[in-house]
């Protein structure tokens, strides 16, 4: 039709989900991905398990801290956070969010149980010492009884089952929203998991640089982390390609909406280019770092930057999906405004979540011998030396 239309009057629609949602999706994805990364070294047996043990220590630390902080961000995204108990008083079988509200505490407690059992041998050893840390260890280990390894395995597998539930519900919750074609695709839940794995492995690389004890396994952790990033990025690229193809072949409105957004809006075009660039750069750098590990010293000092980029990819994907997609108007012309305010609904919320996570991380690092038994020796010998000296 040979006509042009100008929209003259429309109200301003505000975005209903705040950046808190991004923080929740980011942290919970790292949490379940790190849980998976911790499994081989924690419950596995044999040489393979042994090689993954150093990685498992970091992964356990990551899964615990992220699991503790993620629900806080989720709660904050409610406009009536004090009414959270309504979720349990009025559980609703038709709502993915309600199913999630039941899964989340089950997951949280199973992760707590799993990490606690995994760290308990080190706690038992720490009980022997003196001072505050030993007191905390006595408190946290709850007695000096021994527990069979099979119990750890069972709890770990239970946590894994709930983790699968979290993967399913966080993805399905978004993907069923038909009103937003960009969300309404079965590829989205898969992409949440793969980019979550990228981010978790990235966080492993970062913490490996700054928190790992300077001893065995450090370059091995880097190598494993880089491999995980490479594989997860490959799968993500495959998923993105499949999503695009399903749209180009006319099977998905999601793609049509995406292409329309990219065509009509320079911000979206920039974001798409950036996403592609970041993905390619991350993949290339990870591959280079992995290849060059033989002359390791310099590489292993800088490989944490690849980790930061991986975290960026995981976070930015969620920002695009959860925040930017909300700016695509449903009925009106143009785009809604995404204003990230300074306050707790905006920037402070984002920084605050990371700050809280950092605080939890440091508290755990201060009081819990998460690095395992080997970590205790230098400390103890130092203390012993100090006493004798």
């Amino acid at each position, binding site marked *: 039709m040979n006509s042009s239309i100008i929209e003259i*009057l429309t109200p301003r629609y505000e975005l209903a989900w705040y950046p808190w949602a991004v923080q929740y999706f980011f942290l919970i994805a790292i949490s379940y991905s790190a849980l998976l990364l911790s499994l081989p070294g924690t419950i596995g047996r044999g040489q393979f398990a042994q090689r993954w043990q150093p990685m498992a220590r970091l992964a356990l630390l990551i899964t615990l801290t992220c699991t503790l902080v993620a629900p806080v961000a989720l709660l904050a995204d409610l406009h*009536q956070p004090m009414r959270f108990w309504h979720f349990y008083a009025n559980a609703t079988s038709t709502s993915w969010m*309600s199913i999630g509200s039941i899964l989340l505490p089950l997951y949280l407690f199973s992760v707590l149980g799993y990490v606690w059992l995994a760290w308990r041998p080190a706690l038992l050893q720490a009980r022997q010492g003196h001072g505050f840390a030993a007191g905390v260890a006595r408190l946290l280990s709850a007695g000096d009884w021994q527990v069979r390894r099979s119990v750890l395995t069972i709890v770990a597998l239970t946590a894994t089952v709930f983790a699968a539930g979290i993967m399913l519900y966080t993805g399905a919750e978004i993907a069923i929203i038909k*009103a937003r074609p960009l969300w309404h695709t079965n590829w989205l839940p898969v992409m949440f998991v793969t980019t979550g794995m990228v981010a978790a492995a990235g966080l492993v690389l970062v913490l490996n640089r700054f928190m790992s004890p300077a001893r065995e396994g450090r370059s091995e952790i880097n190598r494993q982390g880089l491999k995980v990033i490479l594989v997860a990025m490959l799968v993500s690229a495959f998923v993105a390609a499949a999503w695009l193809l399903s749209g180009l072949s006319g099977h998905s409105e999601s793609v049509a909406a995406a292409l329309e957004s990219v065509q009509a809006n320079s911000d979206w075009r920039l974001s798409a280019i950036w996403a592609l660039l970041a993905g390619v750069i991350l993949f290339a750098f990870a591959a280079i770092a992995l290849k060059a590990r033989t002359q390791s010293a310099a590489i292993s000092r800088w490989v944490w930057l690849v980790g930061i980029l991986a975290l960026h990819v995981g976070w930015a994907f969620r920002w695009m999906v959860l925040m930017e997609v909300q700016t695509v108007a449903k009925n*009106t*012309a143009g785009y809604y405004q995404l204003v990230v305010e300074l306050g707790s609904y905006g920037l402070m919320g984002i920084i605050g979540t990371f700050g809280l996570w950092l605080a939890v991380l440091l508290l755990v690092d201060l009081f819990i011998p998460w690095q395992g038994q080997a970590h205790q020796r230098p400390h103890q010998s130092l203390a012993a030396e100090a006493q004798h000296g």
Partner: protein
Amino acid sequence: MDFARRAILGQIAKLTAGAALVPLASLSFSPSAHASPINSQPARREGDASKRYGMIIDLRQCIGCQACTVSCHIENEAPMGSFRTIVSQYEVSNKSTGDMATMVLPRLCNHCENPPCVPVCPVQATFQRKDGIVVVDNEACVGCAYCVQACPYDARFINKETQTADKCTFCAHRLEANLLPACVESCVGGARIIGDMRDPNSQISKMIAQHRSELMVLKPEQGTLPQVYYLGMDERFLSRPQAEPALWDVRDIDGKEIGYEFLDH
């Protein structure tokens, strides 16, 4: 291609309007009370099951005066800047002749037969009454805004004062007192017709019978079966129109709104 798409959409709209009306004749929409599968409609509750409210908006009568917008705002005390109903206004110009026309499009909750906002609610705060009206119990609502995301019509918003989901209720409180909804009452052209579609003698039933083939609903492809029917509708406006956005607010450095300006004009 655009034209073809619009034409198809228009056909779907008419078909869907027809399909949406069919089950009303048999009044058979009553999902079982328990064990509804994920994302299916939970059982309806409250309200008079012998009625099914719906609305016809006769666009031939609408002059875009926004009396409905204002009266709704006053009746339902929505916070400034949020609206349960609004009349979208468009300027349509024919490129070859230069002729101009105004399109006005009142928007409100469609009280869908298959409302996507209801099953997603994690606490059953939003529900559909037996008379078809979709309401929110704002004492139960946790403000998760999942329903706001699920509504394809932007008919829902988070009320900044109550911090809960808010939407058009067809003025259920007025209907119960035998009054018309504020928007219907104040409409100068009589463009909004509300009524019980199960009563064959109601004005809406008669108009549906008379105009059945011309009625259209918004975004028919969403499968929501809206129960707000438009008469005299232009297919180009069924979904998000291919339009230039014109009015945008202007903010100062602190993000405070200081006025409006036309974009690209």
